[in-house]
């Protein structure tokens, strides 16, 4: 029987890992990626929590893993259909592909911070997102304030576009808190006499080594943690930003002028499952609207609305890099088993 084929939609960490695993299991794979290059958000990242591991150390193995696998870059899959037991994919640049199974690893988009206009993103130059800060650390983006400044003051706002009904996202994006603490420490190391303040609601340092990171930020780097969600950011003299927040532990409002305000933007599904494309739905959309769900959280069986359609990685919900890679491996094995039963 000819080698079975799987189409992987999305060349982020999940897609790359799944491709490598499937190829190692003897399955032929083709990857469709709408951006110009693979790697997803990882390629713009600088250092990973909790041990400041360089992002390229995580990206390179993934990229090496897919050497020799055909990858259609810049082609956005517009149509996935299914008849009998073959799947047909259509991409907007005219590609057609048939496969025995489809693995969606479309991942997440960062929340568009301009939707929280009161934080002044896109209005004041000093307001940036956490992703843009990583680019600054990577040198891919200029710093929005004059680097020779005596004591730059940087603020971090947690939960931007997460746990916020006004943005339609009730869920917690899981990784922004620990990322904020990591970035706060990186800022303190980069600008030795900078003053960093984090405005948080709860600090969800869920993983191993995270609390130690929090400890290091507090004690070694004097990062100030203020429990209070930021209310607004407004312009202050010479391009600085004045922020107002309530310190809910003191029960007092406080005012602070910042040179840079970093918004910890949450995650949103890159492909939003809505009523229209619910034929793709793998059962009712999971927690939070738009994320996909291929099975009930705690049970192994798949909902398998349409057999052969699998999902892996952050498109199922906010996930850290290790979560994504583990999930990609696990789902690849399921895909492989599915193919075995089919042939």
């Amino acid at each position, binding site marked *: 029987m000819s080698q079975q084929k799987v189409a992987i939609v999305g060349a982020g960490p999940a897609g790359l890992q799944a491709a490598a695993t499937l190829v190692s299991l003897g399955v032929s794979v083709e990857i469709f990626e709408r951006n110009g290059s693979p790697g997803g958000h990882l390629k713009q990242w600088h250092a990973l929590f909790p041990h400041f591991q360089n992002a390229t150390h995580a990206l390179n193995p993934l990229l090496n893993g897919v050497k020799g696998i055909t990858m259609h870059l810049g082609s956005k899959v517009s149509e996935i259909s299914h008849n009998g037991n073959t799947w047909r994919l259509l991409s907007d640049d005219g590609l057609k592909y048939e496969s025995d199974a489809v693995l969606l690893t479309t991942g997440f988009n960062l929340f568009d911070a301009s939707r929280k206009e009161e934080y002044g993103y896109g209005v004041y130059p000093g307001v940036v997102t956490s992703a843009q800060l990583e680019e600054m650390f990577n040198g891919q983006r200029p710093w929005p304030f004059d680097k020779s400044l005596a004591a730059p003051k940087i603020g971090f706002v947690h939960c931007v576009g997460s746990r916020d009904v006004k943005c339609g996202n009730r869920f917690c994006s899981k990784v922004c808190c620990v990322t904020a603490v990591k970035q706060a420490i990186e800022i303190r190391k980069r600008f030795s006499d900078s003053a960093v303040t984090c405005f948080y609601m709860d600090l969800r340092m869920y993983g191993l080594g995270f609390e130690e990171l929090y400890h290091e930020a507090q004690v070694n780097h004097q990062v100030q943690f203020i429990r209070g969600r930021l209310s607004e950011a407004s312009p202050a*003299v010479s391009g600085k930003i004045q922020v107002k927040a309530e310190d809910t532990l003191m029960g007092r409002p406080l005012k602070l002028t910042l040179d840079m305000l970093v918004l910890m933007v949450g995650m949103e599904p890159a492909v939003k499952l809505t009523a229209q494309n619910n034929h793709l739905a793998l059962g009712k959309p999971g927690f939070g609207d738009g994320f996909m769900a291929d099975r009930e959280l705690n049970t192994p069986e798949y909902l398998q609305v349409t057999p052969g359609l699998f999902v892996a990685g952050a498109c199922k919900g906010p996930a850290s890099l290790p979560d994504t890679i583990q999930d990609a491996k696990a789902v690849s094995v399921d895909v492989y088993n599915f193919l075995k039963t089919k042939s």
Partner: protein
Amino acid sequence: MANISWKDYEKRVPDDHFFYVRSCIRQTFFPGAETALLNILRNELGKDVFEDSRHTTCTGIGYHSDIIPLETIMTMVARQLSLMTEAGYRNLLVSCVTSFGIYLEMLDMWKHFPEKLEQTRDALRKTTGREFELPQSVVHASDVVFHFRNEILKRSSVRLMNCKSGEPLKVVEHVGCHYAKIFPHEGFGGAEFPSVLSGLVESWGGTVVDYPERRHCCGFGFRHYLIQENRGYSVSNAKVKFESMAPFQPDFIVANCPGCAMFLDKWQYTLAEMTGKTFSAHGHGIPVLTHEELAGLMLGMDPWKLGLQMHQVQVESLLDKLGILYAPIEKYRLAGVDIKPPARPSVLMV
């Protein structure tokens, strides 16, 4: 209509034939400004601005102090409109932002509760035997000045720039809350982005200062300052605003409501006395103009005729920047007679 964002919302302003109703505070504290507006509209721009001397207060001060029943206010407004109908005008031009809010409120109530309109017509007929029609449009004085800002610019040799350095002046604009916050559709740029004053400033060469407490209330509000016990609340509000704008060192403040202009001006003296601090680098305070005074200066009117010497914060420093000539000895000569200048404040430099 196509959904446009509030920033670009343009309000419709008629070009001519206005029935003008005065402002109690403006004609009492800034008579020069009132006559300047009429002078500009009639003589400079040749507009037909009719004024009936029998028109009264719009009851704003009483209304906002809760001592006048709603029906009385409706009848008073109706009476004003009857004067307008009698004079054959359909465009109401309102001088004060508070009365602008009241006229709109009454018209809006009549729209939603027609029986109220009938009751008011009935009450007016019983008391004065008068009839009235609803106006076609209600505009504020600053709307009109904004509307004709280019005509004024054409006639003006003055620009809102520092005549020596050519730098555009940094201007703080403060739009009266009742201008657009009650009925967003009644103000240029709606409630969030009122552009009636910033439009003026920018088209006349100045730059607008975007300071953190830009939208904060100036503290005027009849309810706040009428009773002495409340005035602390009023002056504290103004203080928040001044402390927020001070770092930007604005050259002057322009406001479209007589109340805001008066209090932003007067509270600087009070705050100077209370805290010993002024909010300008050189200790003279930040001059406060109303839009008519600014328009008057643009058209070369004599500052003393405009009554600028009656302001608490002296305006000479601004006039020097604008390059407007003035005779210092004329400052306190009214119709050839020297009047005693006011006592010099201890902190605010005059």
